[in-house]
């Protein structure tokens, strides 16, 4: 067996203390050889028990009884609660409590002579999982394949970190740490702790969740159906965000994941100009999180939301300004810049919340090409779309037939374009003349002053 400091320590302890200790232990050890030679026992915190007491560490747990002859009576049942009194209360209300005949006993999880301190050794997560997995084997199987299960360090979450140890309650129990409304805090315990060496972006994302619409619904409104961590990330099966196609939060899976609750929206989305290619396997199209984000989802009435009226153009711009996207799919160019140059765009940038943004005309989930008869931008529907804000009667042909997005100079009607060019010319010429005249006037005056100084009078 490996030499370990505990061994040495125990040796010192054994030597340093009085005979009764040694004698008692020695008496038991005479027969129960296997126990005493275990490094585990010597390393155990229980070794210190019975120091200075008659009977030593063995009797501390097993109690005093007569060892006079070989066949001593069965010792009384070891009762951990004698010292660990607080645990009894926890255990009694837990799901593993008194009434549960299948429930583990102390020794089932903690061991007997090899009881170790909480922070004492490696692979804590797997050791604990193995303990629980002795009964909960299905979950153990899932956990072992998960990101937490596969992680090579001790700090990673294991069964007791989420479910509790002595106070495990059923998930349906409102007091349980994994009750739906408490669940996010269980993850947050580790995932908001910067000391653990997480990516700071991830830490702030998790903190953002609690301010998001899902987080507030859960923590403030107690809404059971609102999304918590496990709805998207899984619980025992939590996988890293970038792990392949099975992962619930990989791009290809996001509409399905969000659609678990937002079924109506996803149905509409899948019929849209973004959704149809998605069904064909195109992952260039935006999915839910591209517009709404993930941990910072807020109502679009909230000025912090990515979908707030004055932020919508920037969100759409993310794809609709990129040359590779625009070119690849033949999207008409400069749609968003023409919006930003228009009164709607300029006022929106100034913070006006009343003016139209992209979604006001194009809808948000139900975006369709204008040729589609159901599209909000189909000429037949234009008066209804514009009519959402403007008092447009059906007679307003210009709005129905005019090119809304065309830039001023290019595919507009030619008249405004010509006027713009003429004005530009006029302004440049006029200002050019003004500045030249002014400069010449200043030069003339300076010269006059200089010659005047030299010449004296006038």
């Amino acid at each position, binding site marked *: 067996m490996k030499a370990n400091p505990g061994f040495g320590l125990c040796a010192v302890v054994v030597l340093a203390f009085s005979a009764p200790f040694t004698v008692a232990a020695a008496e038991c050890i005479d027969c129960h050889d296997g126990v005493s030679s275990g490094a585990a026992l010597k390393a155990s915190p229980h070794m210190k028990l019975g120091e200075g007491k008659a009977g030593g560490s063995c009797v501390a747990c097993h109690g005093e009884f007569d060892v006079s002859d070989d066949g001593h009576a069965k010792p009384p049942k070891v009762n951990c609660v004698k010292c660990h009194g607080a645990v009894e209360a926890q255990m009694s209300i837990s799901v593993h409590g008194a009434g549960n005949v299948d429930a583990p006993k102390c020794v089932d999880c903690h061991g007997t002579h090899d009881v170790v301190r909480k922070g004492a050794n490696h692979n804590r997560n797997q050791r604990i999982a193995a303990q629980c997995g002795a009964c909960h084997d299905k979950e153990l199987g899932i956990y072992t394949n998960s990101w937490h299960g596969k992680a090579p360090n001790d700090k990673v979450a294991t069964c007791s970190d989420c479910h509790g140890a002595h106070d495990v309650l059923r998930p349906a129990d409102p007091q349980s740490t994994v009750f739906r409304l408490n669940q996010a805090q269980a993850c947050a315990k580790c995932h908001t702790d910067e000391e653990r060496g997480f990516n700071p972006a991830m830490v702030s994302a998790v903190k953002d969740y609690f301010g998001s619409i899902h987080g507030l619904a859960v923590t403030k409104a107690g809404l059971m159906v609102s999304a918590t961590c496990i709805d998207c990330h899984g619980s025992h099966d939590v996988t890293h965000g970038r792990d392949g196609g099975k992962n619930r939060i990989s791009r290809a899976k996001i509409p399905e994941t969000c659609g678990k609750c937002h079924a109506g929206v996803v149905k509409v989305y899948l019929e849209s100009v973004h959704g149809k290619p998605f069904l064909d396997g195109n992952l260039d199209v935006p999915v839910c999180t591209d517009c709404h984000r993930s941990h910072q989802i807020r109502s679009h009435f909230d000025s912090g939301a990515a979908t707030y009226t004055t932020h919508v153009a920037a969100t759409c711009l993310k794809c609709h300004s990129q040359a590779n996207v625009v070119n690849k799919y033949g999207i008409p160019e400069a749609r968003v810049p023409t919006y930003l140059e228009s009164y709607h765009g300029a006022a929106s940038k100034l913070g006006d919340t*009343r003016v139209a943004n992209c979604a006001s005309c194009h809808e948000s989930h139900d975006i369709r090409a204008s040729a589609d008869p159901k599209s909000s931008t189909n000429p037949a529907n234009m008066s209804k779309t514009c009519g959402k804000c403007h008092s447009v009667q059906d007679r307003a042909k210009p709005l129905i037939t005019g090119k809304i997005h065309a830039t001023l100079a290019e595919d507009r009607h030619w008249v405004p374009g010509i006027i713009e060019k003429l004005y530009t010319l006029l302004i440049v010429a006029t200002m050019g003349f003004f500045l030249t005249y002014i400069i010449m006037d200043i030069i*003339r005056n300076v010269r006059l002053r200089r010659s005047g100084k030299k010449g004296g009078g006038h």
Partner: protein
Amino acid sequence: MAQAPLKMLVIDDEPIILESYLKVFSPLRAEFDVTTAPSGEAGLAKLRETPFDLVITDLKMPGLDGLGVLEQGRKIRPDTDFAMMTGYASVDSAVGAMKFGATDFIEKPFSQDELVRFVRSLAELRFSRIRKREEEAGFERFSRPMLTQHIVLILTFTLLSITGVPLFFPETFKGVFFFDDSSYLRGLMHRISAVGLMFLSFYHIGYILLTEDGNKNLRAILPSIPKDLKEAGGNIMFTFGLRKDRPKAGKYSFFEKFEYFGVVWGSLVMVLTGLVMWFKDQVLLIAPLWFFDVAKVVHRYEAILAILTIAIWHMYNVHLKAGVFPMSRIWLTGRISRAEMLHEHPLEFEALTGRSADAEHGAGGPDDGKSEDRATRQGGAK
């Protein structure tokens, strides 16, 4: 230009005196324009009708005497100079008349030469007095109502610019609009200022058509081709050093007329295109979309043109150029200094005073300690 003749009224009960005046001054009619009256009352009656420059009256007359003419005449025409003719016996009263505000007196009998010298000295004194007053107070260029209209224009124009420009640079101005509804307020203030400008325009049209002052200024500012073009061309050549002397302008130089009609045109254009955009829902019922787009383009670019013109051209020409830098006070007081009048609007000076601008221009030199305007600096013929 030829100086306008001095208008003289001579009052004496002796016809011989009146005839001798007429005889003496008829060869000098280019300088002196003589009118006679046989009595104090007749003289005052004539004075009420005509603003004479000079009244020479006999002291002792039946009916209203010289002192009476002096007293009442000064009330009727405070700007007219009065002189007395006295006989030997009434020198004391002549001296007394001086205390009543008469300028000078001449003793009878007097020779022709003495008379002419006397009248010339009176004319000199008068001229000096007037010049001194002009140098101290200048001339009225704009009446109070005109100044007020201008200030209202400044206010509406500034407000319109401030509330309009953010739409050109929304990224820059985002932080300025930091409270809810501030974008709505921007739009509202823009429209209110626009309505203000419309009211000002209507008022101004009424003013120039229906008031005397307005009419006068309207006539002065209407362009007269080819005179104005010649003046403009000459001005440009002078500025570029291709000509030695500046062409003479009247009350409004070519560039000032251009600016005025620029404002007229600009306001009209901005108001019309602004209304098209304000009531776009109604306009689009009857007009094609490109019409609306034209209104947008015009409104935007005309605004740029107007703001730049005011900021660069108007500010330089009115305030920043040599002579009045850093600010001309005319927009506050309505009065223009004598020297600036002679320099910038010599023809107007001649029209108002009847004197030649060229003659007086050089004579306002640095030794003239009374001059309050900064235009008369040392050095530099203007």
